């Protein structure tokens, strides 16, 4: 029997076991929406802006092991989706975005709602396709899902012209994919693994630096086993939080621009560094020359060979799937007769750095400190909630003070730093985990970048808790202006803010204004007790608070500013 392109599209999604599609209809995808209407297996979540559709698919993917799926129309549908696609690309999130396109005969004629979707998304997708023949549709979608989730994951866009979605052909979903030019290396090199194991055993001051690759590869268990086996401190990147339990004694917390003193000093002063699923980016190691000024051996494990020796020269490159290679590395270490070097002095040094207590802050009984809100949030949710965040100071505080013990609980835009990510991402997370506690930590700036999604939350009964740290400033911008631009707060002040409580109510939710530190815990308790409702908590926080520690841009990891230095 022959099926139309639209039917094939939906059948492919069913074959892939897609539970939710996040999208927004429009002219070029009408046939596909018509087919969605006729079935129930694939549920559609109608967002209020295409950017949110992609972020929601992204949040869904990050909190599960599945591929997120978004569906948008041509032209503005695609351009609105681009920020979401770039966000997913920077953080290597598996995702398939299906976009409508004008009919093939109109392509190139500047038709209504025409945009070169493949061209416009090319730099921010793992791969993309324009389907020009309905016979290629099923195999293209199969390839898209395969590419999205295999190797280094990433978003894949499939652009389907309207006429293709209405043409008929025989349908068969391919059971296998073969792309002759694409064979990601998943198994590690045995000799290099042995070499790495030896180095780790002989290290006097080892350090494990673990990134988002650990989460994406579902390798938290292996990482934890390895870190304990080699008796090393472990630091996590912003993307890697939860990959190693933050409450464990070997954890030194997050590293980087706003990392702990012990993590950054440990990175700088270790003699053997094992980087796992991380990419030495500028927010993590600061000034490369400064980082390289100290000798240390580097072992770098990553699925993407291009990540290795990109910014920092590596001594032992381990290309492969993080989980696979860690498993092999553990085997080699366990079979070795050699015991790790005595690390007493190293741990003593770490303890000394720890005693700087770099995340300490002065709480107040007068004004709400943002850090206090996050600490209380951790307490109330027993450290077990899914926390999404937007971008800025609140993001850093959430990363620093919500101690993530489990992977896939911390959902944030690390690479691209996309304001407006938090709320739609939380929708995807909540749909993926219906009974679970989901909170979106945000600011009054970020939340307004996708606040229309409160409407989607109402329609789909998503009881997300919005934790807005409202300091009336674009806080991170203000902080940089204070530090580096002579306190000239150029356009970082948010005037004429909406009444968020009334706004939440207008969307049919519950809003709570919290102005006193003594009300923080009670308000959070009340919010989380309302299990079936979205609660928007508007915390009026200290507008002068800064994120510490801070390694200023262009500086080295040991050139850190601590709160007490000021």
């Amino acid at each position, binding site marked *: 029997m022959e099926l139309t392109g639209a039917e094939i599209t939906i059948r492919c999604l069913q074959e892939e076991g897609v539970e939710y599609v996040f999208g927004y209809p429009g002219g070029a995808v009408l046939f596909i929406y018509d087919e969605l209407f006729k079935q129930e297996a694939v549920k559609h979540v109608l967002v209020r802006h295409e950017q949110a559709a992609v972020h929601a698919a992204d949040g869904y993917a990050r909190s599960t092991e599945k591929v997120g799926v978004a569906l948008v129309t041509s032209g503005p549908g695609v351009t609105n989706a681009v920020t979401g696609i770039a966000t997913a690309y920077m953080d290597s999130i598996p995702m398939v975005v299906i976009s409508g396109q004008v009919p093939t005969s109109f392509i190139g004629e500047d038709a209504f709602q025409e945009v070169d979707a*493949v*061209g416009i998304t*090319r*730099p921010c997708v*793992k*791969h993309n396709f*324009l389907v020009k023949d309905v016979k290629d549709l099923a195999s293209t979608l199969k390839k898209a899902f395969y*590419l999205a989730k295999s190797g280094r994951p990433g978003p894949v866009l499939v652009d389907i012209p309207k006429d293709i979605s209405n043409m008929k052909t025989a349908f068969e979903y391919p059971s296998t994919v073969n*792309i*002759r*030019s*694409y064979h990601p290396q998943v198994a590690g090199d045995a000799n290099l693994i042995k070499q790495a194991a030896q180095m780790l055993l002989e290290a006097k001051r080892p350090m494990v630096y673990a990134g988002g690759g650990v989460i994406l590869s579902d390798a938290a268990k292996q990482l934890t086993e390895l870190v304990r086996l080699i008796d090393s401190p472990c630091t996590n990147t912003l993307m890697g939080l939860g990959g190693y339990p933050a409450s464990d004694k070997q954890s030194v917390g997050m590293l980087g621009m706003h990392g702990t003193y012990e993590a950054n000093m440990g990175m700088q002063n270790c003699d053997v560094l094992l980087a796992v699923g991380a990419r030495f980016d500028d927010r993590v190691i600061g000034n490369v020359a400064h980082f390289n000024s100290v000798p240390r051996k580097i072992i770098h494990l990553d699925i*993407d*060979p*291009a990540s*290795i*020796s*990109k910014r920092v*020269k590596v001594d032992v490159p381990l290309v492969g799937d993080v989980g696979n290679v860690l498993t092999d590395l553990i085997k080699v270490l366990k079979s070795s007769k050699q015991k790790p070097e005595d690390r007493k002095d190293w741990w003593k040094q770490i303890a000394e750095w720890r005693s700087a207590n770099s995340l300490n802050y002065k709480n107040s009984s007068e004004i709400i400190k943002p850090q206090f809100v996050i600490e209380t949030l951790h307490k109330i949710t027993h450290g077990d909630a899914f926390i999404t965040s937007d971008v800025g100071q609140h993001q850093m505080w959430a990363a620093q003070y919500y101690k993530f013990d489990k992977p896939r609980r911390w959902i944030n835009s690390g690479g691209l730093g996309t304001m407006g990510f938090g709320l739609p991402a939380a929708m995807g997370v909540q749909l993926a985990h219906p009974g679970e506690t989901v909170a979106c930590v945000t600011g009054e700036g970020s939340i307004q970048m996708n606040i229309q999604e409160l409407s989607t939350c109402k329609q789909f009964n998503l009881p997300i808790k919005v934790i807005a740290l409202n300091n009336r400033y674009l806080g991170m911008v203000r902080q940089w202006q204070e530090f580096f631009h002579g306190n000239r707060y150029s356009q970082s002040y948010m005037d004429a803010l909406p009444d968020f409580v009334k706004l939440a109510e207008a969307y049919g939710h519950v809003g709570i204004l919290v102005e006193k530190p003594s009300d923080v815990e009670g308000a959070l308790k009340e919010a989380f007790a309302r299990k079936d409702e979205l609660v928007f908590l508007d915390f009026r926080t200290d507008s002068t608070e800064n994120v510490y520690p801070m390694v200023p841009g262009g500086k080295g990891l040991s050139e850190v500013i601590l709160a007490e230095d000021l």
Partner: protein
Amino acid sequence: MRHIISLLMANEAGALSRVSGLFSARGYNIESLTVAPTEDATLSRMTIVTSGSDEVIEQINKQLNKLVDVVSVMDLSDGDHIERELMLVKVRAEGADREELKRMSDIFRGNVIDVSDKTYTIELTGAGSKLDSFLHAIDRKLILETVRTGASGIGRGDRILKI
């Protein structure tokens, strides 16, 4: 340092823009880029002449390999290889110059492939430096137009880039 990178990629719409887009997005140099289908119509062969530090060249190779359309990459500069470029030069060929230009063309083993009463069009093949030499050897004022293809390269002997 100058490198000549050869690659095989899927002969598909947009494949070229993925490569050129990669170079511009990551700030790599392209001195020249040539591309045409191979004997296997599903594959194109591309030759890119670029320059950069060892680290940059390593990244270029890795990033090219990462493109889904790219089947195989070889840095020809890593070993013995042959490089050829085709140039078409239209020159003003009048009076005494006519004889002189023909003679120069012969010296450089060029062919005069089009003749008018005032012009010659000379076809020359060789390494880029040979083509440069020819342009330097003739009177600059006589050059009306030059068209160069950019380098194509191939490994010597058993160095083969094929799938």
